[in-house]
């Protein structure tokens, strides 16, 4: 038999539109502007059709629209952006499908694709709010699915949503269970995700003179969770790289010498244990609190000669790792001749005036490194100003900085300081990384933003090894003690890349608390949901003991059967009634027994009719059955019922039961 063509109800059409919007909304964050506009136009067209002002489009119009979208996609996306191109294609296809929804079949196509598109947002973004939007989208798409099966005559806008909630609500415990227990399998294939260049406060090289205005970004660099107490703010130096070569203008990293082991380290304090959640950088460097004890549990990380952490491959996604660091230490007690040469090398002809100044100060200090360093820091403290808008410095940038402008930020100070130390023959190097961070009291973690990027100096002193000296601290101690955030609250250059940044308005009071709370929740999301696979094994081990397939299956099956049983009970369980009357109970037991024996009572059969039928099948029982039927009739429908009759009836029922 041919299935009749099913037209969907008007409410269902509206639900398709709602589902479509819900699915597209999260994608707005990345989509080229014309796609949402096109979708809006299609929705408007569909509403015109829905209200009866327009009729369904002719095939030629549909063809034209299809060609327009195809051309738009080809012009917008190239081979590099395969993923966003594909999702855009799906979204545009959905929007075109909106125009021709008429039958149930059309709506089903739209809904099934919408489910898929709703989940593709996770390829672009995995934040908490995205998950929330996606959840809402799934709820609405399910409602749209419900509406499709609604009776076309019965227009009810609310019911599909209620049904959708009713269907999805019992699925939540199952979802949580699967999330907790389901093994995380490595992907079978991977998709090239489109990435724009990451913003970072760090770079491989450091040329302070080139920068006249430092714009700093409020983007997140990494977050740290300490197992114990966090170190005091003055010790929060996060080491990322060491610049050991100076070419007269620019500091850069020494060529990689991975064969060499890390400089020797003697820890003088109990090491701190902590976990770092690093945002994507697109580079190799990783972060560690001064001074990392070992590369610890970092899967891909190696500890370089200069005790910075480096990943073997570039970091293209959020990375979690655990480290141990000691804040009191002695680093690199011995310095080889090669290294001494490298760390004191400066181009002879560069910055001559600074070299002369160094020579003079060195002589004044009686060639004592301690006194020389004190003299330099004193000089910085007296004569120099910390600013984020230093003047641009041309050739011999350190000369200009030291003798003319005397204004700069951490890179200027660290670079000039290291240069002058080297000029006096003292081994020195510049360390780049982050300093400080914002403590979130709600979730107990430290948040480092890009504007926390910092540069400082390490000096090698005989008998002490490499000592960290931060010349910026001599100029602007607040920079180290507090955060840059509070220091430059009114500086226009600060956060200039993001003029409407939420950070600007959330520096104090309730807004600050709200922001910290939001960031805390987001952090918990990253740590416990997105990075759950890192914790899964340990967590399951804590709960289940030794992991074995049997235990995993049991752990999955038991709660799952509980949940499903509960659902089944909710659906079916209420039909059973409790029978208190002994006669009633005995009678139902008898009826159940008979039903099991293959002679069930039909619903429309009264007990009397049933007994009459039964008596024909079981002539041996016909007498008690007839008697029982008669007594029951008197009891149930007659006027005169007495306790004796009831007792008699009960006896008869039991007798029948026994003789079965």
């Amino acid at each position, binding site marked *: 038999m041919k299935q009749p063509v099913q037209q969907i109800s008007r409410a269902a059409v509206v639900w398709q539109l709602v589902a479509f919007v819900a699915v597209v909304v999260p994608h707005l964050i990345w989509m080229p502007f014309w796609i949402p506009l096109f979708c809006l136009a299609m929705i408007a067209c569909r509403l015109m059709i829905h209200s009866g002002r327009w009729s369904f489009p002719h095939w030629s119009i549909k063809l034209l629209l299809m060609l327009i979208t195809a051309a738009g996609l080809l012009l917008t996306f190239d081979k590099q952006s395969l993923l966003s191109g594909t999702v855009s294609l799906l979204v545009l296809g959905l929007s075109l499908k909106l125009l021709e929804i008429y039958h149930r079949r059309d709506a089903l196509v739209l809904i099934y694709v919408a489910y898929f598109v709703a989940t593709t947002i996770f390829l672009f973004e995995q934040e908490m709010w995205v998950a929330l939007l996606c959840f809402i989208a799934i709820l609405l798409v399910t409602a749209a699915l419900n509406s499709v099966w609604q009776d076309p005559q019965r227009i009810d806008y609310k019911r599909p949503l209620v049904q959708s909630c009713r269907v999805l609500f019992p699925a939540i415990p199952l979802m949580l269970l699967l999330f907790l227990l389901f093994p995380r399998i490595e992907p079978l294939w991977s998709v090239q995700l489109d990435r724009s260049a990451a913003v970072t406060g760090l770079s491989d090289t450091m040329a302070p003179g080139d920068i006249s205005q430092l714009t700093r970004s409020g983007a997140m660099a990494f977050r740290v969770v300490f197992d114990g107490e966090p170190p005091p703010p003055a010790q929060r130096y996060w080491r990322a790289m060491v610049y050991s070569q100076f070419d007269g203008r620019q500091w850069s990293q020494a060529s990689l010498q991975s064969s060499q082991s890390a400089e020797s380290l003697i820890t003088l304090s109990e090491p701190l244990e902590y976990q770092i959640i690093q945002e994507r950088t697109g580079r190799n460097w990783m972060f560690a609190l001064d001074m990392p004890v070992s590369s610890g549990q970092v899967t891909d990380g190696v500890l370089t000669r200069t005790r910075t952490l480096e990943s073997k491959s570039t970091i293209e996604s959020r990375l979690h790792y655990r480290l141990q660091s000691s804040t009191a230490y002695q680093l690199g007690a011995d310095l080889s001749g090669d290294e001494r040469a490298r760390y004191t090398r400066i181009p002879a002809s560069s910055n001559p005036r600074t070299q002369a100044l160094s020579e003079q100060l060195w002589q004044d200090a009686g060639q004592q490194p301690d006194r020389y360093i004190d003299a330099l820091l004193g000089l910085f403290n007296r004569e120099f100003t910390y600013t984020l808008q230093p003047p641009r410095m041309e050739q011999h940038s350190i000369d200009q900085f030291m003798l003319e402008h005397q204004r700069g930020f951490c890179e200027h100070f660290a670079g000039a300081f290291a240069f002058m130390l080297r000029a006096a023959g003292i081994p020195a190097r510049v360390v780049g990384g982050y300093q400080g961070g914002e403590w979130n009291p709600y979730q107990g973690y430290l948040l480092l933003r890009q504007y926390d990027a910092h540069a400082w100096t390490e000096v090698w002193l005989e008998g002490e090894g490499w000592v960290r000296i931060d010349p910026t601290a001599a100029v602007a101690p607040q920079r180290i003690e507090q955060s840059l955030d509070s220091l430059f609250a009114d500086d226009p250059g600060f956060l200039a890349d993001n003029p409407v940044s939420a950070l600007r308005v959330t520096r104090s009071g309730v807004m600050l608390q709200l922001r910290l709370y939001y960031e805390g929740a987001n952090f918990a999301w990253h740590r416990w949901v997105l990075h759950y696979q890192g914790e899964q094994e340990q967590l399951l081990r804590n709960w289940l003991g030794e992991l074995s397939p049997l235990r995993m299956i049991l752990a999955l099956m038991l709660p799952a059967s509980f949940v499903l049983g509960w659902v089944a009970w909710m659906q079916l369980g209420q039909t059973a009634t409790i029978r208190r009357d002994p006669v009633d109970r005995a009678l139902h037991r008898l009826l159940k027994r008979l039903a099991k024996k293959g002679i069930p009572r039909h619903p429309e059969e*009264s007990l009397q009719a049933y007994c009459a039928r039964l008596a024909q099948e079981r002539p041996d029982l016909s007498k008690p059955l007839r008697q029982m039927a008669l007594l029951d009739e008197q009891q*149930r*429908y007659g006027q005169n019922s007495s306790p004796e009759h009831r007792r008699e009836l009960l006896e008869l029922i039991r007798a029948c039961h026994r003789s079965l």
Partner: protein
Amino acid sequence: MSDLLAQKFQNSVDELGKVLLGKEQQIRLAITCLLSGGHLLIEDLPGMGKTTLAHSLARVFGLADKRVQFTSDMLPADILGVSVFEAATGQFRFHPGPVFTQVLLADEINRTTPKTQSALLEAMEEGQVTQDGETRVLPTPFFVIATQNPVTQYGTFPLPESQLDRFLMRIALGYPAPEVERRLLTVGDTRQQIDSLQTMVTVQELMQAQKVINEVHASSSLIDYLQRLVQYTREGSGFSSGVSPRGALALLRCARSWAWLEGREHVVPEDLQRVLEPVIGHRIRPAEDIAGHTSTRLVAELLSQVDVMS
């Protein structure tokens, strides 16, 4: 006394069975309807014995009967009566229409216009006729047996639900079984047979029986069952409109009559089940007018879905 009365009615069933061969069930239903004080609608094809049943009933119960053949050009006055000016007395004199009788056989009621239909149905409901501002009470008992052709036939004005509701029962006679029909063919003239019928019950006895029936016991278990049935017609997906409280009351009354006719002093579920289709069949409507979803099927579904014993 009551037993004796019931026996008389039982005998009348047998007496009617002499003319309407093999239709005991329908005869019982018709008597039940009469006992319950309601009106009867017989829906069947022409020539199935509708008129015979009506005539026989009137005869067996000793009631005056009149027959009206409804046609499409009939007017209300043709049924209710008309006031005519008499030159001799110089006054209007009311000539009562055929409605002034005890048993009125309204033949093919759906062939006349709604206007005429409603005039009759009003009389049925009120038990009186108002003509020219004067109200005239109809004789008691007043029992209408209307017959109608299935609405699918040509030239019919189907009765709307509200008017169908005025009839306590709707029954169909159906074709006779082959052996019964054979007997029918050999017996010969039906009219003579009707004339030969004996009057078994007097009007007084009929009125008395109608009173007695109210005392037939309906237990709470039975009321519960009835209530479940009615509730199902209101909630079940197959029904577009359920049985009204008036329908439920009619059901109980007919079940009582049936039980009494069976010689019982209390109602059992079977009584209810017997009268269920005739009483509610014309009061329910299937949700979708898909072919095959007749009220008979609906009632069968209703019976199979509602448990007699909670």
